[in-house]
């Protein structure tokens, strides 16, 4: 699915987001992992992107205010 590049690190970068989204084919996944095994430069960047996603998700997740929860329950339609 990816366009090939002569530079293995550039190719690895193209595969990074699809890799983290788990949408690479098995063959592409193996290819990415083989490169990551031997390339510290790419491996650091993959690890960073992976932790960034988790970090962003944690940072922006806000609990719902308790008052709103009560308001939603009050919107239920009473039984006849």
């Amino acid at each position, binding site marked *: 699915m990816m366009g090939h590049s002569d530079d293995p690190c550039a190719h690895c*970068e193209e595969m990074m987001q699809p890799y983290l989204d788990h949408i690479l084919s098995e063959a592409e996944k193996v290819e990415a992992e083989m490169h990551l095994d031997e390339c510290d430069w790419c491996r650091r960047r993959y690890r960073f992107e992976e932790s*960034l996603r988790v*970090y962003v998700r944690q940072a*922006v*997740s*806000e609990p719902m205010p308790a008052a709103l929860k009560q308001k939603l329950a009050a919107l239920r339609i009473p039984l006849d």
Partner: protein
Amino acid sequence: MAEASDATRIAATARDRVRFEEEALALSDQVYRVARHIASSREDADELVQETYARAFRSWRSYQPGTNLRAWLLRILTNLNIDRGRRAQRTPPMQGLEANDYFLYDKLAESDGGLSDEDRVVERLSQDDIVSALSAVPHDFRDVIVLVDIGDFSYQDAAQILDIPIGTVMSRLHRGRRILKRELAESVLEEGS
């Protein structure tokens, strides 16, 4: 006899409706988590979630049991958000900082002088940096990021919720993540200057 079967039918409908309402309410934390960043403010998110549930409770019969209720609720929510007057925004031009996927990492690692633990580079970003960077992403892109990366919806669900092709979900996600990283990189640059 007819009266008895009517009563049975009414009781079954009431039971279905109560079950629907309970299942919908059980998802409200997850709905809010997405709504909070689709809406422009906490107050808007609060109103939007209430309108969504009011409409869902009225229209419960149009929900098909066994399908994804969370996606169904979010579809109502995103439609209401558009009805509330959200207008299309101009797509920002691709700028130099977005040219590759690693610029944020490079920027953070560089500003750190390569001293800190590799796994902690991300912690140079504060929660405020992240919340304001996400809110700076134009909403067409932000909606997709919020649904997929924060709400855990699949590309397919996000496409149905937003009523856009799956290819558009993928391209907006790709672009939106880069815009988010550009915003984050800018906040790091501002703090460093």
